[in-house]
């Protein structure tokens, strides 16, 4: 009965107050109004969806526009030049790019194995009643704002490293040929190594929670079959869980890498802001984000500002690629599991 359907629409609209009583006197008018509202809402949501795309487009366009001056002046030489001289307005991105990559690598080398180990503990070993609390605790670590890591790194962690780990490393590798240059120089506390370690603590929860999620998605039947054959827990993880979830795990690692590359405040506090490429891991350095955070508000002159925005554009391009690959891989594993 179509009429019954129609009637209830209007009644409902009346009850909900969406219509004025006077307007309801004419049902066709009321229905027209509902139809219009429906179309309007649909277009509104569609516009909001497009707004997300426009936002991304806006970021790219504004960064390119802002960095155009530096881009046309320095060209691709910007990428490989180590100079950073605000007085002569001669800028190059080599030192920040190098610092960004080295600190992120240190972070990943430490955080990936530990993150996977924790994920394995949480999915295979941990007693059931502890899984949720430990999982939440690790995720809380991810929720702590980066500035907290920064202030903690500056006042607690850097002095600690200066007194313990750094002298130890210098003493240990001081006479080893190649490694000695990695740990050359006095222990300042702050520097590339400290920044890398702080980043490791920061990305650890991301890698852990994504690995745990994909580990949990492995069909129990597969694991049970392996256990049934007499595999040990480690053998099950090594030969069943990891191969099955490889794509997802790599996606999680890339997501963590994306975070590490773009992280600003935690690094800015402890990196030392020195524009030079140094082989030593304990020497002060800089990263793209730390350079922008430290210098942008004090930058004088269009070329200086434009060079800093160009640094931002480079950072955005690098993280965009890393994050796009991460999302693609996570999408692949979701499709397989779902």
């Amino acid at each position, binding site marked *: 009965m179509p009429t019954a359907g129609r009637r209830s*629409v209007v009644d409902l609209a009346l009850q909900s107050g969406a219509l004025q009583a006077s307007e309801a006197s004419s049902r066709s008018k009321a229905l027209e109004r509902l139809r219009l509202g*429906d179309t309007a809402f649909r277009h509104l949501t569609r516009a*909001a*969806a497009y707004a997300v795309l426009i936002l991304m487009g806006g970021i790219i366009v504004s960064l390119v526009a802002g960095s155009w001056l530096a881009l046309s002046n320095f060209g691709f030489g910007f990428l490989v030049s180590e100079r950073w001289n605000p007085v002569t307005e001669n800028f190059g991105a080599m030192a920040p790019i190098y610092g960004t990559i080295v600190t992120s690598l240190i972070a990943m080398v430490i955080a990936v194995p530990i993150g996977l*180990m924790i994920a394995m503990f949480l999915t295979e070993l941990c007693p059931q009643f502890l899984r949720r609390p430990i999982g939440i605790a690790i995720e809380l670590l991810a929720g702590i704002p*980066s500035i907290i890591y920064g202030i903690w790194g500056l006042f607690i962690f850097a002095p600690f490293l200066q007194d313990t780990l750094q002298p130890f490393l210098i003493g240990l590798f001081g006479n080893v040929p190649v490694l000695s240059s990695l740990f050359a120089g006095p222990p300042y506390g702050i520097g590339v190594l400290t920044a890398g370690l702080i980043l490791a603590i920061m990305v*650890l929860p991301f890698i852990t929670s994504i690995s745990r999620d994909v580990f949990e998605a492995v069909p129990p039947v597969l694991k049970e079959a392996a256990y049934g054959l007499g595999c040990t827990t*480690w053998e099950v993880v090594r030969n069943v869980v990891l191969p099955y979830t490889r794509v997802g795990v790599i996606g999680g690692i890339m997501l963590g890498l994306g975070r590490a*590359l773009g992280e600003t405040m935690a690094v800015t506090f402890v990196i030392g802001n020195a524009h030079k490429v140094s082989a030593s891991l304990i020497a002060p350095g800089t990263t793209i984000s730390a350079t922008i955070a430290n210098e*942008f508000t004090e930058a004088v002159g269009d070329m200086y500002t434009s060079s800093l925005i160009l640094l931002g554009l480079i950072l955005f391009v690098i993280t965009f690629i890393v994050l796009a690959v991460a999302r693609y891989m996570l999408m692949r594993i979701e499709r397989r599991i779902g």
Partner: protein
Amino acid sequence: MAMNPTPRYAARRRKNAITLGLSLAATLFGLGWLVLILGTLLYEGFSGLSLRVFTEMTPPPGASGGLLNPIMGSLVLTGLAVLIGTPIGILAGTYMAEYGRHERLTSVVRFINDILLSAPSIVIGLFIYEVMVYPMGHFSGWAGAVALAVIVIPVVVRTTEDMLTLVPDTLREAAASIGLPRSLMIIRIAYRAAKAGMITGVLLAVARISGETAPLLFTSLNNQFWSSNLNAPVASLPVVIFQFALSPYKDWQALAWTGALIITMTVLVLSITARALSGQRKQS
């Protein structure tokens, strides 16, 4: 179980025990950082925590004072960012889950949104500087709020889409069968069913932006004094912490620790509330 512990079997068991031991150690290591960081924060932050912190302005070096203006600034910026970002995020998520679930547009928006979700926040600061601060000619609270809103949007889009997708189709069909227009079905049925999850999303977004510093550095900048003018620079807690922590003055550093404690506690309370909300929904 008459299994002979052959050397090979013993070696496999040993390897297993070692790896499991390492995984336990890794977990303790991970949790250790949380304890360490929270411990230092409590220790350093509590010693400076007093009523003055919430009633007085930020002091000049060497004088005593509080964090009233940055706390208010942060509240205002966060509130505005949520007011601007949440509607856009919810509407976009609605389109993706309700209208265009199988459209190409939805998968493109989802992909781009996921990248925005983890894009470096300092780049968002540069973006807002380019589109708002530079054309206006001065730093402003509005610019800071919009920069934070840009961070809110992807978080809300993601949770809204996820939560609306979980709403059973039978509810939608029931609504449609009594002739409810689609927009009213979404607003009165789907939103209501997904409410807890959507609130979680907003809470997570607030937790995310309440500690964000990088996008505020060159948008809302900082302000030593009370400011109710959003067209002028506004102080915010994270930026004040940044400035005070890097200063050589002991009083400022102590205030920075106290501010850090306040932010962390806020964020932890928000994320635990969010988790409790979404946990409840899962059980019911």
